[in-house]
Each structure stands twice: as structure tokens, then as C-alpha cells.
């Protein structure tokens, strides 16, 4: 991949990837850094894939790994500083609305599952590949994530969406 190809690939994938990183990491301030880190890892790895869809899937997998690495680093720092309570997820960023705040209350893996399945439109196999999970477990995990999202929306007084029939 030369610089022109990379630039075209970047312009095609970066806006959506930035949204994914921002929502899954729940840290808007770190999203730019994580986006850069993702593309740097992508360029260093030089994945041998020609299919654009496969390249995009590899990119999301790399982004997820970068987010998880950042959380592990933050967790280690919190343990050392003793100034923070130990938490499994990153501290939620200030959301721009009720839906955002509700989404940030989900577990990180649930956020990633829902985003990849319903925003990016990935099939279960692609979601499993991006998150290093067993494909057979994706359906159940998505069901649980939807259930948790519904519970959180109800707890925050947000009414259910009425599904409009086409």
C-alpha cells in the first residue's frame, strides 16, 4: 500500500472508525489518539488482504485491541496511584444526550457488539472476528446487550422505540 492508497483508505474509513472508537471507549478526548494508534498499527502490521471489506474488518479489530490496551494501561495506573477505585471499564465521558449516556453505561464489549452489528452492519462472523470471540456466541451476546440497553433506557425514563412497520 502506497501513500495515495492509504490516504484514500483513510478518508473512506476514518469517520466511521472515529465514531466507533469514541463510543466504545467512552472517552471522546482519547478518540483522536486511539484513531492514530489504530492506523499506525495497521500500517506496521501490513496485513496481506486485498478485499476492502476484509481490510476494514482488520482495522476494526485493531481499533478494538488498541482500546482494550489503553484500558489495561489505565487500570494498572489506577492500581498504582490508589487514588481511583478499581473499575472494569473506562470512566464515562460526558455524553451529548440521554442516548449517549445510556450507551456509555453498557459494558465495553456490549458497546462494541452493538456498534459493529447495528451501525456497521457486520454479520455475526465478522463481529466475532473483530472482537476475537466465538461466532456461535455472538447471537446470545447480542441478545444480552440489547436487553441491557433496553433496561438502561427504561431506568433513565426513555420510552421504547415503537418499531414502525414498513
Amino acid at each position, binding site marked *: 500500500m502506497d501513500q495515495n492508497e*492509504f490516504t484514500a483508505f483513510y478518508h473512506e474509513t476514518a*469517520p466511521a472508525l472515529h465514531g466507533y472508537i469514541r463510543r466504545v471507549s467512552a472517552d471522546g478526548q482519547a478518540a483522536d489518539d486511539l484513531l*492514530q494508534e489504530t*492506523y499506525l498499527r495497521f*500500517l*506496521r502490521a501490513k496485513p496481506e488482504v486485498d478485499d476492502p471489506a476484509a481490510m476494514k474488518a482488520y482495522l476494526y479489530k485493531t481499533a478494538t485491541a488498541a482500546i482494550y490496551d489503553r484500558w489495561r494501561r489505565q487500570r494498572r495506573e489506577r492500581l498504582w496511584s490508589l487514588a481511583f477505585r478499581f473499575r472494569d471499564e473506562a470512566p464515562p465521558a460526558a455524553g451529548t444526550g440521554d442516548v449517549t449516556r445510556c450507551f456509555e453505561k453498557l459494558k465495553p464489549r456490549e458497546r462494541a457488539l452493538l456498534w459493529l452489528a*447495528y*451501525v456497521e452492519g457486520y454479520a455475526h462472523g465478522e463481529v466475532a472476528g473483530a472482537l476475537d470471540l466465538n461466532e456461535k456466541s455472538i447471537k446470545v451476546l447480542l441478545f444480552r446487550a440489547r436487553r441491557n440497553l433496553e433496561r438502561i433506557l427504561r431506568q433513565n425514563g426513555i420510552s421504547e*422505540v415503537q418499531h414502525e412497520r414498513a
Partner: protein
Amino acid sequence: MNEPEAAVWMGRLAALSRDGGALPNPALIWWKARLFEKQAAQARATRPIAIAQWVSLAVAAVTTIVLCMANWRSIQDLLAPAGLALWVAGAACVILMGMALRFVFSD
């Protein structure tokens, strides 16, 4: 919540995520990647030199310890009448040597 409802909520969230803010410059990312490649290649090329430096330091340290142990009686006899001043001077030499080694081996 069924799948169509989830898709609606997630679509709403995705729309909120498109804040139109400026993204990092791809040229900057490209050149950073090239720089890291060059640094990695340089580190690979100079690795044998770094290994040789550490091996020579280890050999020097072991040799010093062995010689001191072999001649400990003589060293004790030499230092006994000297008193505190010589011990302080010896400690200062060791500290200065350590600082010099740190300077030499730092990148």
C-alpha cells in the same frame, strides 16, 4: 428490544457521533509509520553492539568481584589504617563510575 429497535437506537447514536470535527491528518500518520519503521530497523542493526556492551560490562563486574574476593585479606590490611575518609572516597568513586556507565549506555 428486538433487532430492528436496536438498529434504530444505534442509528440515532451513530448520527450523534458524526460531530464533523477534524480528523487527524493521514499524511502525518503515514510519515509517523515510516519513522517508526526506520527506528525499528536502526534498533535491529545496532542490537549486536548493545549486546556486546552489556556482555563486556558483566564480564568487568564479575572480574572485579572475583579479584576482590581473591585478595580480600590484602584489601582489608590496606584499608584498615585509612579510616573513614578513604571509605568515603571509595564510595564516591563507585557512584561516579555508575553515573558514567549510565551516561555511556543511555540512548
